[in-house]
C-alpha cells in the first residue's frame, strides 16, 4: 500500500554520481498503510497499520543525519532523533529502541499521538524542499517492533533508597514521574481516581487511534519497574495531600491530575437529553465500553444525527466515535475556518475521509428539544472572518440573519477542558492561578507546598501527551534531588 517505488536506495544526500546516468528520483516520504475509510468507519480497530520493516528502513534512510539536527530541538523531550533513525537504517533495532528509551519511556504512545507535524517534523531540513522525515512513524515503528519481539528489557534497578513517593494520577505525567523515580531506587505508589490507568490515554483517546493494549503494555512496563498503583483512590477525598505527606509517610508527592473539567457553552438547551460533554461521551464509549452495550452495562445514546461542537483533537475523536457507534450523519460544527482548527492535520484528514461533514464558520446559539426533553435540532449562525484577535487568528463574526437549524438528536460539546478543582479545593496550601491551574515552577514543577510537585495538564492547561511527559521527567529530577537531601 506504500505509494512509493521501493528502490531501497537512499540518497538525496548522495550526489547522483555518474554523469551519463539520469538523476535518481528522490525517495518520497513513505506512506503508512491504513484501513480504508469505508471499512474503518464501521469498526474500532486502529486506523494505520504501521510501517513494515522494509518501509521503515527506506524512510530511515531519508534522514540526512544533520550535524546540528533541528528536529531534536523541536522535540519536547529531546530524543536523539538522528541516532535512533540511523540505527533503524542500519537495521539495528535493538540499538534504536535503546536510544529512544533514554529520552522517552512511552514511544508507542508518542509515535501515535504526538503532534509531530508541529514539533519535530516541522523543523526537519528535508522538509524545506520536500517532505520531512516521518519521525513519528519511525518512533512508532521501533516501539512496536520491541513490543512484538516480546522481550521488552527491564533496566537494572538500584538498591532501595528508603524514600517513598506518592504520585497522584496515572496519566502520562504521573506514569513518567513514577517510572523515572522507580529507576532511581525509590518506592513509588500511584493513586488513581478511576478504575483503570492511563488518564486521557484510556478514557479519552479512542481505540482506533491508540489501542488500549498499547497503553496497558506501557503501564505494565512501569509496574515492572516496581511501581504500585492503587485505583479508585481520589486524592482530596480518600486521602488529602497533607495526609500523604504525614500519616501515610511519603517523602514527596507529585500531582498529575490533568485537565478533566469539561466546559459547556452556556447556551439554552444544553441540559437536554442527548447533549454530552466530549469527556462524558468518550468516557462512556472508551473507559466504560458502551460501544459493546448490552454486553457491557453502560449505555450511550443511540444517535442518528450528531453535531460535535469544536475543532480540536477531542472534537475529532468524538465525531469519529459517533460514526463508529452507528450515527448516519455526523456534523462537525466549528466557528472558525478549517485552517484555524487546532486538531492535528492527520486527524482532520482522517475524519474527512470517513465522511464527517464539516460545518465551518458556524456557531451554535441554542439547542432545541422535544416534549420529552430530547434534542431535536440546533440553531446556528453563520460566521465570517474579521479582524485578528488576541491569539492572532482572525476573529469570527456573525453574519446577520444567517440563522439556520441543524436537525440533530445528539450534540457533543467539545470546546475545551479546564482544571478539575477537586484536589486543589481540598488542599488550601496549594496555590492556583485564576483558571484553577496549580502554580508550579517552570523547571522543577515545585508547588507552593514543600515536597509537593506538579506537572502536565493540571499546570499548563489542556496540552499534549509529550509535554505532560516532559514535565514529569523534569519534576522527577527535582524530586530525586529533594528526597535525597532529606534524612530518612
Amino acid at each position, binding site marked *: 500500500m506504500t505509494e512509493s517505488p521501493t528502490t531501497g536506495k537512499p540518497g538525496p544526500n548522495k550526489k547522483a554520481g555518474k554523469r551519463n546516468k539520469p538523476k535518481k528520483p528522490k525517495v518520497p516520504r513513505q506512506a503508512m498503510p491504513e484501513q480504508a475509510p469505508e471499512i474503518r468507519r464501521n469498526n474500532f480497530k486502529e486506523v494505520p497499520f504501521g510501517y513494515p520493516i522494509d518501509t521503515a528502513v527506506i524512510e530511515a534512510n531519508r534522514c540526512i543525519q544533520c550535524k546540528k539536527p533541528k528536529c531534536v530541538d523541536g522535540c519536547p523531550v529531546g530524543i536523539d532523533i538522528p541516532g535512533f533513525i540511523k540505527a533503524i537504517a542500519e537495521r539495528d533495532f535493538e540499538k534504536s529502541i535503546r536510544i529512544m528509551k533514554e529520552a522517552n519511556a512511552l514511544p508507542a504512545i508518542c509515535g501515535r499521538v504526538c503532534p509531530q507535524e508541529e514539533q519535530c517534523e516541522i523543523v526537519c531540513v528535508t522538509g524545506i524542499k520536500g517532505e520531512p522525515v516521518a519521525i513519528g512513524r519511525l518512533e512508532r515503528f521501533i516501539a512496536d517492533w520491541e513490543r512484538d519481539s516480546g522481550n521488552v528489557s527491564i533496566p537494572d534497578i538500584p538498591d532501595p533508597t528508603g524514600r517513598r513517593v506518592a504520585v497522584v494520577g496515572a496519566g502520562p505525567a504521573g506514569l513518567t514521574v513514577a517510572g523515572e523515580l522507580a529507576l532511581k531506587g525509590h518506592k513509588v505508589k500511584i493513586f488513581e*481516581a478511576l478504575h483503570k490507568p492511563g488518564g486521557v490515554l484510556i478514557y479519552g483517546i479512542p481505540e482506533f487511534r491508540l489501542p488500549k493494549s498499547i497503553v496497558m503494555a506501557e503501564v505494565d512496563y512501569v509496574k515492572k519497574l516496581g511501581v504500585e498503583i492503587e485505583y479508585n483512590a481520589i486524592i482530596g477525598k*480518600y486521602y488529602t495531600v497533607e495526609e500523604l505527606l504525614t500519616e501515610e509517610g511519603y517523602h514527596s508527592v507529585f500531582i498529575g491530575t490533568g485537565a*478533566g473539567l469539561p466546559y459547556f457553552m452556556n447556551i439554552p438547551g*444544553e*441540559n*437536554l437529553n442527548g447533549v454530552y460533554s466530549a469527556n462524558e461521551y468518550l*468516557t462512556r464509549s472508551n473507559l466504560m465500553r458502551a460501544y459493546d452495550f448490552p454486553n457491557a452495562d453502560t449505555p450511550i445514546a443511540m444517535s442518528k444525527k450528531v453535531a460535535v461542537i469544536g475543532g480540536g483533537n477531542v472534537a475529532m475523536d468524538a465525531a469519529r466515535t459517533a460514526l463508529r457507534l452507528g450515527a448516519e450523519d455526523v456534523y462537525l460544527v466549528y466557528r472558525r475556518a478549517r485552517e484555524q482548527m487546532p486538531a492535528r492535520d492527520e486527524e482532520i484528514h482522517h475524519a474527512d475521509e470517513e465522511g464527517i461533514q464539516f460545518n465551518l464558520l458556524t456557531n451554535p446559539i441554542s439547542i432545541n428539544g422535544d416534549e420529552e426533553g430530547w434534542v431535536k435540532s440546533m440553531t446556528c449562525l453563520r460566521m465570517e472572518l474579521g479582524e485578528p484577535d488576541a491569539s492572532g487568528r482572525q476573529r469570527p463574526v456573525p453574519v446577520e440573519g444567517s440563522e439556520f437549524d441543524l436537525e440533530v438528536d445528539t450534540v457533543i460539546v467539545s470546546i475545551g477542558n479546564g482544571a478539575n478543582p477537586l484536589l486543589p479545593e481540598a488542599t488550601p496550601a496549594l496555590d492556583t492561578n485564576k483558571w484553577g491551574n496549580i502554580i508550579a515552577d517552570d523547571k522543577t514543577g515545585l508547588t507552593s507546598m514543600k515536597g509537593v510537585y506538579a506537572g502536565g495538564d493540571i499546570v499548563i492547561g489542556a496540552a499534549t501527551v509529550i509535554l505532560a511527559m516532559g514535565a514529569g521527567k523534569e519534576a522527577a529530577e527535582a524530586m530525586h534531588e529533594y528526597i535525597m537531601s532529606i534524612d530518612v
Partner: protein
Amino acid sequence: MNEIKIKQVLSEGVKDFVVESPVIAKKRKAGQFVIVRINEDGERIPLTIVDSDPKGGTIRLIFQEVGKTTCAMGELEEGDSILDVVGPLGKATHVEKIGTVVCVGGGIGVAPVYPIAKAMKEAGNKIISVIGARNKDLLILEQEMADISDQILVTTDDGSYGRHGFVTDAIQQLIDDGVKIDLVLAIGPVVMMRAVSNLTKKYNVPTQVSLNSIMVDGTGMCGGCRVSIGDKTKFVCVDGPEFDGHLVNYEELMLRQKAYLPQERKSHKNHKCRMEGME
C-alpha cells in the same frame, strides 16, 4: 477488598450491605456517597453511605433493586466482593445546631436521610422524622429512625400503616400545628422532593434536597450529572448532592433520569428480578 460482611433484606427488593472499606469508613461524613462497580462489564452507580464503622473498617449501603446493576448486586452474598468502591464522594452535609430539623424520607430515600438525621441529632438539633412508603411492607429503617428522632411520623400511600397519605400531608400537619421548623431535609423520589419543596416554599421554610442524577465518574470530569439550580448549571457529584430545594429544576432532572430508559430496559430484559421504578 470490598468484601460484603453482612447482607440483610430490608423489604421486597431492598438490600442492606455492610461492606469492608477501611479508608472510606474513616473519612466519610454524613451526606456523602460512593460509586460502585460490581464486575468488569459493570456500570458505575452511586449509592449513599448510610453509616460506617471506622474501627471495624466497614461502610453500610442500602439499595433498591430497580435495574440491571442493583439487581445483580442484590444477588451477591456475604463473602463476595464488590469490584470497585470509590469515595467518599460529594460534599458533606453542612451540620450545625440550628434548632428543629424535619428529616423527610420517602421510599428508599429513608436510607440516605438516616445518616444526615443522625449527624444533625448529634449536633444537638431537635429531629422530627417523617418517613413514608407506598405500603407497610416497603417501609424501611423505622426503628433506626425512631432511635435518633425526637418525634417520628410515618405515612403510607395506601393507609396500610401509620398515617394514610403522603409525607407532605404530615409536614402540612406540623406546620398547621404551629411547630417552628428551621430546616427541612427531604430525600426520596423526585416527585416527592418537588412536592415537599413546593409546600415549604409557601411557608418560607429552608429546604435541602439530595439529588440522584445519573453519574459516571463522580469526580466532576464528565458533566453527565448536571442539573439546573436557579439559573446555574451544577454538577451533582461535586457541587452536591444536596441543594436548595427551592431552586432545583425538578422537571429537567426527571427528564434527565429517563435518558437511558430504552437501553436500561434492554439491558435488564434477561434479569428476573422485578422492575420497580424509582418514581
